[in-house]
Structures are given as structure tokens and as C-alpha cells.
């Protein structure tokens, strides 16, 4: 026979003013199973908790009901009190008589008291069916997988590895570095991007805890938090990295020219190439889509000139498997294609470029040697128009959101233009200047004062050619006049969009993404680093547009989360998970279909004791189960139950009203 203790809280005046607490206690005492009932001013205070602990021992209670505030508030507190008294903490039930009674029925004390009594009775009834539960511990594989080798992936990998946790860093292109490696100088301090990034890239390559797998992609992820299994496809590079010295003879002699992605297609690279001089690893790969030998079986020049014999045209893609405990996704961003802006003549005029192309032009290792040039005739531009919000904040032709970084990098571009071409002038069409950040407003100010960049408030409506000039027409709302700027070069700050592969990757990882393709965080404010799937974290622009400091901060936060996850040998988990009674399971597998976490699999067990015939039943992976109870309600044979919310518990509650 159950022995229930009931503890009713005054919560100062919060409950006592609107609920007649002594009556509730008296009502509780009338219940057969209740062996002890008492009230107290503050149940959550130390003396209050002490009362509970003492009563458990004194009255040999088998379950406890605390009638107080919402269980979302103090359930954990009282559970701890139970376990301190040597009682299983899950034998506690909380009757929410504050949020659900005293605070919402302040005009009718009788009704509030009646309701509180009911709530207590319901909690008592439920607690009678409570079972002892124990935290689940799940073993953890202490290795992290980082997807993407831009600054976000690099930072996350380094921080995790510095905590002596092995990291596998997977990068799609032949070198790590990402977008940041393409930048010239960075706002608001104008540090050289390469100077601050390349040491980190070298660190990644030499770190004893980092395994760098370049030129490869994640193709499969199975398992659950702490116990994932990843399959990585390493694309054939056709170059034996072990023997290659990176001398460069192969790409110097290669006759095939391909638009150079690193330089945004402004110049050409070869079919065998290293993306840029500081690449890590600094070994060339053959681009199978363009290599004449691989396409037609002719040429073979690179193999002839390679003294080490490192070229291997027979190389095949390789599948690498890794067991890992956590994943950091850092796939970065791309630039929106401004083609829909027909009024700007995008695609028709060579002298309209996007800001990343401009970045490459002003970059000292760029295709024009650090001097901006008009793509049409190679002349150095004197008047450059920068247009912000191209595609951003434009629900008609582009994307609704603000790309966040354009205001700042456009100010930077104005300064860089001034540094490279002293007698030039920048005209910047803007809608708002969003410069919230440390030193940002000062930086924009610097662009205006120091370089004389002219800021015009308005969206450009049309660009047309007149002679060799581009006429840029817009409104300057400050003077309420239409203006036309005779420009030599137009730079579009096109919207920052997520990597095109994000939706496919999200499906593969089992996480969600928004309508733009950005991967979704678990909570926009309080869990901005985690995804809804335990053990998968987001860093950098894969989640939303971000500048470098924010990206680095989020990457480090990911590392902290991973380290926290790996802190013990096992992970502790709430025991409120589903369990299957095999004897009742009919094997219909409806539960498998409804489980949002793929936590339910099937297994074959003998039909009867010692029988050789087999039958299929459901099996729940308690490491994955999040305890939603979908499977319980769908189960036709009532073979599944959810600990903490079992059918008897809930039915008891209903009947007790």
C-alpha cells in the first residue's frame, strides 16, 4: 500500500491569499493513501525541504506530492530533496496550485481552493503509479567531426583539439581557409586577412589532435549523440600527397585553363592546381571535370614533368569511416547571383562586379596585383559606385533578410579603394548604415572623413552605359533629388546566402534549415549554437550571416559545447524515455514511422522460449529517445510506455478529479 506525503506551500501570500491552504491539507488527509500532510510558508526554502526529508524517513513515505508553484519552476529542487533523503527522485509529483489556481482565480477563493484540492488529489493519484527511475548513462566516443574548413571550422577544430580531443576536419575544396582566405584586409582594424589566418591554417595541419581530410565530403551520418558514425568520401586527387613535394612543376606546365574559383573567376587556373599559394595542404589536385587526360585519355603532361612520379590517373574516390561523438557544421556562405536585377544590366556590363570580386582585385595576391581594374578594358577606375543591399532586404527580387556584413565591408572597400587609387572617389548608395559592433561606427566614420567616400541614401534604380561610363541612377533622399553618377566601375554588395549544399547536408545530418537554406539553431536566443539534434552544433555563416569576430566566437562556443559533452566518460540523460514490452509488441512498426528522432529500430527475437522461429519487435534506443510519447499513443497493442508519463499515471490523474 502506497504511503504518500503531501506538502502544501503558502508561497508567502502568493498561494495563501487566494487558496485556503489548511483546507487543502485537510482534504488531502482524507485520501486513503495519504499518510502525512502538512503546509509551510516556503516549501522550497531549506527548512521546507528539511520537512520533506524528515517526513520521508519518519513516515516511511513511498511517494511525495508537493503542492506549490509550477513544476517547470521547482521540480528539480524537490527531486534533489528526495534523493538527499535516500528516495528515488522520480517518486515526486508537483501539483501546480500557484500558476494554475491561486494566481488565475483570485476573485473566487472557494473555487480556487476546490481546484487546488483537485490538483492535489490528481497528483497523489499519479504519484501512486510512479516508478523508480534512474538516469541513463550513454557511452561517448570522444572525437569531433568538423564539416567545413573556413575560419569557423578552423577555430572550432583548434579549440577542441587544444582540449586534447581528437578532431576530424573535413573540407570540400583542396585547401582549408574558406572565404576569409579570399579577403584582403578586414574591418574595422584593417588587419591583413592572410596574415592572421594562415598561421591558424598551419596550426590545423600540424596539430597532433587534428586529422585534416581535404577535398572530401561527408556522405552519411548514423547514430546518436556521443555515438555517431560518419562516412566521408575523399575525392580522388590523382596526386599522391605522400610523395608530392608541392614543387608546382605540374600546374606550371598544364595546358588546360579553367576559371579560378579563388579569384572569383577573374583569372584562370589550371586543371591541376593548388587553389592559392598559401594553401593548406599545399599539394595540387587534378580537377577531373576539366583534365584532358581524364576526359579523353590524351595529354598526360603533368605526369611527365613530375619528378617524384606522384601523379596517379587511376586513383579512385575513397570512403573513410569515423566514429565520432559530436559534429560541428561550418559550411559558410556564398554570394547571391544578381541576375534578377535586370535594371542594373547585370550580366550585360562587364564593369559591374560583386564585392567579393572587388575584394580579390584589391588583394595584393589577387589577379590584378592589388589594383582595381575595369574588367572591360583594364583601366584603373577613378569613380567607383558601391551599391549596398543588392538582393538583401528585397523580397521582390532577392531575399528578405539583411546580410549584416555589407555595410561594414563596403566602408572597408571605400578605404581600400582610396589606398590603392589615391585620386579615386567612392560613391556609396545605401539604405541604412548598420554599424553595430565594437569600433564599427568609428570605422564607417573613417571611411567618410578620411577617404571622402560619398554616401548617398537611396536604392539605385537603373544602370546604363554611356560611352565607356556606367551611368548609375538613384535618389539621394537627403536632398530629395535624383542623381546620376558617372561611374567607371560598379560594385554590388550582393546578399550573403547559405551554401547551396545546406539543404542536402541538413537532411543527411537530420537537422532542420530555414526557407533560405540557413541551418536552424535549437533556440534563437538561448541555444544559438546547438541544433535540435543533440550533439550537432553550428558555427559561422551556415546559421546566419556573420562577420569574422562573431563567427570565431560561435566556433569557440561550439568547441566549449563539444568539450562539455565529452567531459565525462558517459553522458547522463533524463530517464523519461519510452520502453517496449516485447511480449505485447505485434511488430506493426507504426512507432518506427512516427518517431521524429529515428530512435526506434526493429529486432528479431525468438517466437517463444527456445523457439527457432523469429518475430520482429520494436526496439528503442534510449540514447536517442527524447521522450515525446508519440510512439506510446500510436501503439495499438499498448506495448510501449513512456517513463514518467505512463498510461496508468495519466488515467489515475483523470479519474481522480
Amino acid at each position: 500500500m502506497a504511503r504518500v506525503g503531501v506538502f502544501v506551500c503558502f508561497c508567502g501570500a502568493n498561494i495563501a491569499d487566494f487558496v485556503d491552504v489548511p483546507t487543502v491539507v485537510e482534504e488531502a488527509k482524507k485520501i486513503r493513501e495519504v499518510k502525512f500532510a502538512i503546509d509551510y510558508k516556503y516549501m522550497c526554502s531549506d527548512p521546507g525541504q528539511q520537512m520533506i526529508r524528515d517526513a520521508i524517513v519518519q513516515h516511511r513515505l513511498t511517494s511525495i506530492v508537493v503542492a506549490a508553484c509550477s513544476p517547470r519552476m521547482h521540480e528539480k529542487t524537490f527531486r534533489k530533496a528526495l534523493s538527499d533523503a535516500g528516495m528515488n527522485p522520480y517518486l515526486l509529483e508537483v501539483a501546480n496550485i500557484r500558476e494554475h489556481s491561486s494566481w488565475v482565480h483570485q476573485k473566487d477563493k472557494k473555487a480556487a481552493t476546490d481546484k487546488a484540492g483537485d490538483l492535489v488529489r490528481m497528483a497523489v493519484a499519479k504519484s501512486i503509479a510512479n516508478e523508480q527511475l534512474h538516469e541513463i548513462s550513454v557511452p561517448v566516443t570522444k572525437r569531433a567531426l568538423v564539416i567545413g574548413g573556413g575560419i569557423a571550422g578552423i577555430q572550432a577544430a583548434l579549440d577542441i583539439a587544444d582540449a586534447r580531443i581528437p578532431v576530424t576536419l573535413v573540407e570540400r575544396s583542396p585547401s582549408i581557409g574558406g572565404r576569409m582566405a579570399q579577403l584582403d584586409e578586414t574591418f574595422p582594424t584593417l588587419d591583413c586577412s592572410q596574415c592572421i589566418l594562415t598561421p591558424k591554417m598551419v596550426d590545423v595541419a600540424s596539430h597532433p589532435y587534428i586529422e585534416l581530410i581535404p577535398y572530401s565530403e561527408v556522405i552519411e551520418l548514423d547514430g546518436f549523440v556521443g555515438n555517431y558514425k560518419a562516412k566521408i568520401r575523399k575525392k580522388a586527387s590523382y596526386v599522391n600527397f605522400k610523395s608530392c613535394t608541392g614543387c608546382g612543376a605540374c600546374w606550371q606546365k598544364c595546358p588546360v585553363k579553367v576559371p579560378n574559383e579563388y579569384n572569383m573567376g577573374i583569372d584562370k587556373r589550371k586543371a591541376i592546381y593548388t587553389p592559392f599559394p598559401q594553401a593548406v595542404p599545399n599539394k595540387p589536385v587534378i580537377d577531373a571535370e576539366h583534365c584532358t587526360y581524364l576526359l579523353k585519355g590524351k595529354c598526360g603532361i603533368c605526369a611527365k614533368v613530375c619528378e617524384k612520379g606522384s601523379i596517379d590517373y587511376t586513383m579512385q574516390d575513397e570512403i573513410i569511416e569515423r566514429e565520432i561523438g559530436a559534429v560541428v557544421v561550418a559550411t559558410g556562405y556564398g554570394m547571391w547571383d544578381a541576375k534578377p536585377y535586370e535594371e542594373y544590366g547585370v550580366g550585360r556590363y562587364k564593369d559591374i562586379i560583386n564585392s567579393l570580386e572587388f575584394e580579390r582585385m584589391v588583394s595584393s595576391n589577387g589577379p590584378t596585383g592589388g589594383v582595381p581594374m575595369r574588367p572591360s578594358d583594364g583601366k584603373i577606375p577613378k569613380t567607383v559606385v558601391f551599391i549596398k543591399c543588392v538582393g538583401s532586404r528585397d523580397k521582390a527580387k532577392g531575399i528578405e533578410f539583411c546580410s549584416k556584413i555589407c555595410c561594414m565591408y563596403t566602408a572597408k572597400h571605400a578605404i581600400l579603394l582610396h589606398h590603392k587609387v589615391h585620386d579615386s572617389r567612392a560613391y556609396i548608395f545605401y539604405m541604412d548604415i548598420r554599424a553595430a559592433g565594437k569600433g564599427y561606427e568609428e570605422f564607417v566614420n573613417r571611411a567618410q572623413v578620411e577617404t571622402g567616400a560619398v554616401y548617398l541614401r537611396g536604392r539605385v534604380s537603373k544602370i546604363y552605359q554611356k560611352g565607356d561610363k556606367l551611368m548609375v541612377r538613384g535618389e539621394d533622399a537627403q536632398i530629395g533629388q535624383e542623381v546620376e553618377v558617372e561611374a567607371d566601375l560598379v560594385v554590388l554588395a550582393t546578399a550573403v546566402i547559405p551554401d547551396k549544399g545546406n539543404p542536402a547536408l541538413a537532411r543527411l545530418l537530420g537537422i532542420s534549415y530555414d526557407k533560405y537554406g540557413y541551418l536552424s539553431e535549437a533556440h534563437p536566443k538561448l541555444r544559438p549554437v546547438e541544433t535540435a539534434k543533440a550533439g550537432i552544433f553550428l558555427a559561422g555563416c551556415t546559421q546566419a550571416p556573420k562577420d569574422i569576430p562573431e563567427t570565431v566566437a560561435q566556433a569557440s562556443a561550439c568547441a566549449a559545447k563539444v568539450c562539455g559533452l565529452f567531459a565525462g566518460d558517459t553522458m547522463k540523460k533524463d530517464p523519461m524515455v519510452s520502453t517496449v514490452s516485447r511480449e505485447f509488441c505485434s511488430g506493426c512498426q507504426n512507432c518506427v514511422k512516427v518517431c521524429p528522432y529515428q530512435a526506434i529500430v526493429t529486432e528479431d527475437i525468438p517466437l517463444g522460449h527456445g523457439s527457432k522461429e523469429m518475430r520482429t519487435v520494436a526496439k528503442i534506443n534510449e540514447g536517442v529517445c527524447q521522450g515525446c510519447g508519440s510512439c506510446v499513443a500510436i501503439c495499438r497493442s499498448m506495448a510501449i510506455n513512456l517513463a514518467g508519463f505512463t498510461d496508468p499515471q495519466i488515467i489515475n490523474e483523470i479519474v481522480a478529479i
Partner: protein
Amino acid sequence: MEEVKEKIVSIEKPDLIAPPDWKPVIVGILCNWCSYAGSDLTGTSRTQYPPNIRIIRVPCSSRVDPWFIIKALQTTADGVLISGCHPGDCHYISGNYYARRRFLVTRELLKMVGFHEHRVQFSWVSAAEGSKFAQVVKKVTEDVIKLGPLHLYKKENFSK
């Protein structure tokens, strides 16, 4: 078919006049993450609503077995309210969609056996919608009061 349904719905009649001290009982089954949190917010913001509802907490609206609804109507309740997260907001990704589908089928079934459809109601209440929760409870309570006490299907009727 629609006509038949309409006729069946009209089976339930308040054939007994409600006793003067009658107060309806409504069982509210709320998901932990949105609606229960929303009902807590109703409390913290001191929004008042009729005291007839008795709230049961479940992790997700998809945990609600039709059995719970039937059991409640059979034993204690004059009406049942199920509430979950808004579509697309489910803490468990898609549980509220299962809940809605299951609920619709259950309600159809109950209508077929003679319950008025206002006896069982479904709503989306988020953790931020404290005042909406109060409105929902008010509406459900008013609907049930209009219908009167639930005598049909009560155990005591069968045992007599």
C-alpha cells in the same frame, strides 16, 4: 453522409436540467513545452479565467491517447481540451501534427456516438500566449456550460 452526421450529432440533448450547483469539469491536457508553459504564463501575468479546468501535463500533444479523452468523458469530465505547440513549433519536430490528426479522428468518432463536437476541443497555444490560453479556456468553458452536464455515456448511467 453529411446529413446523417448532422442527425447523429443532434442525439445529445440536455435531457436533464442542470442542478443549480452544477459546475462543469474540463480536463485540459497540455504539452509541456508550449501550452503548459503558456498556462504558467497566464498565471504569472495574473490573467483570470474560469476555475473549471483541471490541467494534466504531458510531454507532447502527440502523447495524448484517444483513450484519455474517452476515459475523461466517461468518468469525470464534461469537456476536454487538448492543446499543443503551434504548427511548425513542436519541440519534438512533428508531434503536434500527429496529435491534430489523431484528435480529428477521435472527435469524428465521438460525434458518431452522439457527443457534441464542442465537448472536445483542440487549440494551439505557444509558451508566449498567456492571454490566449485564458481566452481558450474561457471559450471551452462557456461552450460546455451551454451544453450542460454530460450524462450520456457516464458509467453510472450504464450501471443503473
